[in-house]
């Protein structure tokens, strides 16, 4: 498709190039992102994303905060999946201090992270519908997400910045009949997937807008360090929950959906299937939840030994990692956050060339970035 377009711009039809600023205030850049598009008519000749508008310097902040305080900052990276950020920070510190979290604490963490994955993919499903032009799926997605946020509000007290997963376990055990409400949510969620499929996935106009658009070939994906549903969309089976299990993930059986030819539709389809898998994981986790203490014994002032550690988990947007170097004090010496959205976004400048303006929005939406995580 690309070669055919470039041939049109022959020497004779002298069309002067138009530079269009997509963002930073734009309804479909999912946050404060600016993409400088050079266009010939409707076709993009070069795209250059410009990030940094939401940079809050978390890595500098981390250097003068104690370990538990850093959890509160971690909520603000990928603000649609704060539980995953908390989990990766807690895992890094626990690995450094060699703390073993009891089984109940680990399974509670799995339940929370998977619920958060569903909530984050629901936001993707809703906003991707709007990017392509259908307004109704957004409202349905947020109707379901409200139920999840209510569950989170009961367990942690907040709706977006939970600060629930702590070093050594979780903030507090589940309230009384939380498990009953969680199960009723899962029952409510299952028929919704059929509704979503009829409304958007099998909709011919939607498929026409997303099939064979923004194809991300596998070698390009690997060389750009793409991870998460975008990588699985290009038919590469790699999921940290299966390949490097953490937090007792090896106890659950669930499948890893992978797309076929790496276009926008496959990335969208992978996320919808992942939501269905997450529902299965939560059900197994709720059955598997053992009794007993959910927190490990952790000293009041956390002072990990000297050393460095790299912990990574499968966040909804990809491989979220924390590279933590400690010099024995109560504040980390150096923290580097490996942000999946920041790295996935870099591929935009390659696959946008030759596409139309409407496709730019479809491709940007299908990569599903959150600017809090891109800029940190």
């Amino acid at each position: 498709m690309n070669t055919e377009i470039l041939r049109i711009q022959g020497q004779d039809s002298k069309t002067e190039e138009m530079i269009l600023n997509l963002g930073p205030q734009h309804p479909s850049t999912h946050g404060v992102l600016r993409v400088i598009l050079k266009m010939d008519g409707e076709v993009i000749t070069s795209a250059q994303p410009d990030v940094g508008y939401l940079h809050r310097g978390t890595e500098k902040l981390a250097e003068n905060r104690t370990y538990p305080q850093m959890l509160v900052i971690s909520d603000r990276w990928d603000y649609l999946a704060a539980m995953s950020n908390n989990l990766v920070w807690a895992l890094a510190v626990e690995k450094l201090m060699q703390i073993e979290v009891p089984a109940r604490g680990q399974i509670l963490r799995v339940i929370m992270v998977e619920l958060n994955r569903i909530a984050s993919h629901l936001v993707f499903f809703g906003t991707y519908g709007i990017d392509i032009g259908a307004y109704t799926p957004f409202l349905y997605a947020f109707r379901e997400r409200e139920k999840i946020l209510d569950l989170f509000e009961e367990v942690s007290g907040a709706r977006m910045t939970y600060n629930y997963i702590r070093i050594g376990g979780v903030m507090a055990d589940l309230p009384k009949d939380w498990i009953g409400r969680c199960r009723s949510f899962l029952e409510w969620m299952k028929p919704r997937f059929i509704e979503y499929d009829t409304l958007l996935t099998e909709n011919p106009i939607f498929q026409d807008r997303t099939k064979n658009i923004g194809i991300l070939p596998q070698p390009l994906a690997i060389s750009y360090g793409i991870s998460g549903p975008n990588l699985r969309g290009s038919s590469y089976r790699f999921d940290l929950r299966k390949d490097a299990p953490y937090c007792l993930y090896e106890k659950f059986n669930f499948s890893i959906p992978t797309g076929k030819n790496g276009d926008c539709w496959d990335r969208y389809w992978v996320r919808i299937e992942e939501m269905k898998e997450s529902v299965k994981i939560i059900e197994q986790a709720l059955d598997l939840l053992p009794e007993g203490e959910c927190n490990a014994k952790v000293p009041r002032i956390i002072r990990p030994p000297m050393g460095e550690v790299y912990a990574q988990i499968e966040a909804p947007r990809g491989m979220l990692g924390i590279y933590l170097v400690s010099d024995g004090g109560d504040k980390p010496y150096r923290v580097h956050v490996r942000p999946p959205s920041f790295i996935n976004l870099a591929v935009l400048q390659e696959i946008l060339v030759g596409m139309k303006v409407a496709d730019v929005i479809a491709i940007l939406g299908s990569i599903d970035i959150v600017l809090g995580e891109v800029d940190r």
Partner: protein
Amino acid sequence: MLNYFKTIYKVGKSLIQGMLVTWKSFWQPSITVQFPDEKLITPERFRGALTFDKETCTACNLCVKACPTACISLEPAVDPATKKRIAKVSWYQIDFGKCNYCRLCEEACPTKPIKSVRHTHQYEWGMLERKEMFVKWERMSPSTEPSTSGSTNMKPI
């Protein structure tokens, strides 16, 4: 030729199915909560605005250390007679412009049985200027109201 009509049929059928989904939810009752009239009940662990109990606080500074954004500042009371520090607080100030509502201060507070700094269930709370965000509790002054340097700010939006 045949699959030309088959695609038309398939496209038509899935379009109609999509429309039936919206038709079905057209008749379902709406789930909006009309805020000023109907209000949602906040769960028991809800982290709303912070309150402070002047009498029980022993000015131990644990909450000041625990806060990630250092928005709490306090000054221990001094017994006028013996000029020695006593286990009471003279004033206690929280800068709600920086507060993360993360409950670390409440967890760090050692006072039994009710913590002196804790979250309430109040979320209707607007402020007009930045100065109003500094909520200050004085123990010495006769008025027991938490006074800010300016108008009292506990009015709902």
